[in-house]
């Protein structure tokens, strides 16, 4: 294995485009694609073509909400083939440490350079609630494992390997989860485990997020990890209410609900809200990027990115 | 069906229903002869298996009569009795006997007329439901025996 790529005399841990962008001080924009519930990559290919110039990377989800879909590794390869930059999500729900390591090796061999480590939604929320879950290791242990494979060229068992996977390591955090003190402590733990970028749960309550960021800054974490604020463009009042009431870790202020209720055109209002949120979030100290999750509304990404003034995406030579 | 005289077992608390029955008697109130009373020191003495056994041994209907809620001589006996009755009702549904054949009533020792009313009400209910499936099966076998 050659030495990690270098640029501007700076040493990089990986060949990841995201790592280089963050290093250059760019404000990074990522988005998300959920694969189909079928043996076709048509929608992935379509969304990649439609939006690849509007963001720096696409998360490709790993059976999100525990619903069986085309695998995140396969999805990531489709994105790659069509000129996009995939961020492969990997959860601990469906694989033990053997499968996880094997999939990491396989994914890297296919050209995937970014991985996002998560616990995974509990299977009771999905379309196979009677499934057995795995959770052999948890998300923080997964982060540490990816780092161990990369930096120590060793498997979890300690066994050495020759061609190590060199992933740029991402993780998620829920700024509004409970208890708050533990959340910041847990973020620190993820950073210590090896997380290099963080995508947060969707934010609607900017004030509360700003408070969380102040805690993050006082812990010095914004200097050690690239934090990307999560945004979900919402199509309707119903969707907004659903998130407020049913999704753990999402806090929607009442003003936003009222504003949406009064809107003549809820879709347009939803876009406007997303654009405004991005504007406010990017100005919070320590926020290094935006992660836009257009859940089953992928087509809206170009417009939102453009209106937020983030369209001209930087190019890496 | 109109000739069907159900066999009904009434588990009666000594402090209320049993005394109410006495009162009904001295008031010369009529209540059906189908009711067989069993005295309990408290309705809370009732056990799941006693209720089931009553059905197994030929009852078409069973009820437990305890004191008004809040007036149990042993504080919570009647509340416990009600819970057990509810449980056995479900079991009887599962067994195909029917939970409707079992009921819990609350009354006080001064309620002689209410005692008679409950006895009538339960008799009417069971009459409408017909014999317990166990008794049907039983009378069927007897009849077969006679025919042979």
């Amino acid at each position, binding site marked *: 294995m050659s030495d990690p790529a270098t640029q501007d005399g700076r040493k990089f841990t990986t060949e990841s485009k995201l790592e280089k962008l963050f290093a250059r001080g760019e404000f990074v924009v990522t988005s998300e694609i959920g694969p189909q519930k079928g043996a076709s990559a048509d929608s992935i290919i379509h969304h990649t073509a439609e939006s690849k110039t509007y963001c720096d990377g696409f998360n490709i989800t790993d059976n999100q909400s525990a619903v069986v879909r085309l695998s995140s590794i396969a999805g990531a390869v489709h994105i790659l083939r069509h000129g996009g930059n995939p961020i492969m999500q990997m959860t*601990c*729900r469906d694989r033990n*440490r053997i499968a996880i390591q094997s999939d990491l090796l396989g994914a890297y061999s296919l050209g995937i350079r970014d991985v996002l480590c998560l*616990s*995974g*939604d*509990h299977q*009771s*929320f999905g379309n196979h609630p009677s499934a057995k*879950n795995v*959770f*052999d*290791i*948890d*998300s*923080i*242990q997964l982060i*540490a*494992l990816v780092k161990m494979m990369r930096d120590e060229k060793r498997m*979890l068992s300690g066994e050495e390997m020759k061609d190590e996977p060199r992933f740029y390591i991402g993780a*998620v*955090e*829920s700024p509004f*989860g*409970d*208890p708050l003190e*533990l959340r910041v*402590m*847990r973020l*620190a*733990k993820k950073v*210590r*485990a090896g997380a290099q970028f963080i995508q947060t*749960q969707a934010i609607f309550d900017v004030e509360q997020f700003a408070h969380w960021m102040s805690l993050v800054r006082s812990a010095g974490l914004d200097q050690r990890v690239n934090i990307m604020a999560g945004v979900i463009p919402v199509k309707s009042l119903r969707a907004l209410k659903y998130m407020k009431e049913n999704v*753990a*870790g999402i806090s929607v202020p009442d003003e936003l609900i009222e504003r949406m209720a009064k809107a003549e055109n809820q879709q347009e209002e939803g876009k406007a809200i997303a654009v405004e949120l991005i504007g406010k979030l990017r100005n919070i100290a320590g926020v290094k990027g935006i992660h836009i999750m257009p859940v089953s509304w992928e087509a809206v990404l170009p417009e939102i990115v453009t209106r937020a003034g983030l369209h001209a995406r930087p190019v890496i030579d | 069906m109109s000739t069907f005289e159900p066999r009904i077992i009434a588990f009666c608390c000594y402090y209320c229903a049993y005394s109410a029955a006495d009162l009904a008697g001295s008031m010369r109130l009529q209540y059906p002869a189908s009711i067989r009373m069993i005295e309990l020191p408290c309705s809370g003495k009732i*056990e*799941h*298996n006693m209720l*089931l*056994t009553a*059905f*197994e041994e030929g009852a078409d209907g069973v009820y437990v009569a305890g004191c008004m809620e809040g007036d149990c001589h042993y504080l919570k006996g009647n509340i416990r009795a009600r819970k057990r009755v509810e449980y056995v009702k479900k*079991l009887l549904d*599962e*067994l*195909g*006997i029917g939970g409707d054949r079992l009921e819990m009533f609350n009354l006080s020792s001064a309620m002689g007329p209410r005692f008679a009313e409950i006895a009538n009400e339960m008799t009417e209910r069971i009459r409408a439901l017909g014999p317990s*499936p*166990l008794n049907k*099966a*039983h009378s*069927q*076998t007897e009849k077969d025996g006679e025919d042979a």
Partner: protein
Amino acid sequence: MIVAEQKPLTEIAENIKDAQKVLVVGCGGCVTVCLSGGQKEVDILATSLRILRKKDGTPIDTATETLERQCDKEYVDKLAEKVQAADCVVSLACGVGVQYLAERYPDKVIIPAQNTKFIGGTTEHGIWEERCALCGECILAQTGGICPIIRCSKSILNGPCGGSQGGKCEVNPDTPCAWTLIYGQLKRQGREAALGEIFPVKDWSKARDGGPRKYVREDVLL
């Protein structure tokens, strides 16, 4: 204790449909305490089965017995005569008791009447909750006496996950988030800083994943 819940009557009845003489055996251990397989439940089940079969016109005879424990050979031995006289045996013990009967009386069909659910305790009269995952390597010293393996829906060792809200687990709003409890407990004891350390991956070979387990005490072998 081991907590078990009785199977639906129809399932038990289906499994004994060819029998005329049925022995119903309870256990005086855990399942008596959790009110699902002691003497009382034995009587209720026996009566229920008799009623069911009488109703169907195929009456059965039942015999009953409740052993001190079904997971001890000495007690199981005492059943020999009654087992001999029965066509089949219905056990109200946990899965261990059922297997002990099956091992001791290999010629008889032994039917489980319970679904063995978990190791737990009573939180209030009539409510039992799971507390131990039998993982084989206890970590309660580090987690404030609260087990994340069994009480966290994802068995996370570095929790809580994003699904914890208002101190509850998103999988079931009745379930407290184990990691919120752990944090609260460690904070009370001034030990919460320990949660900053990454909890290492668990050795599951000590749990059931390593195959059926055995425990030997050389000093008490006869």
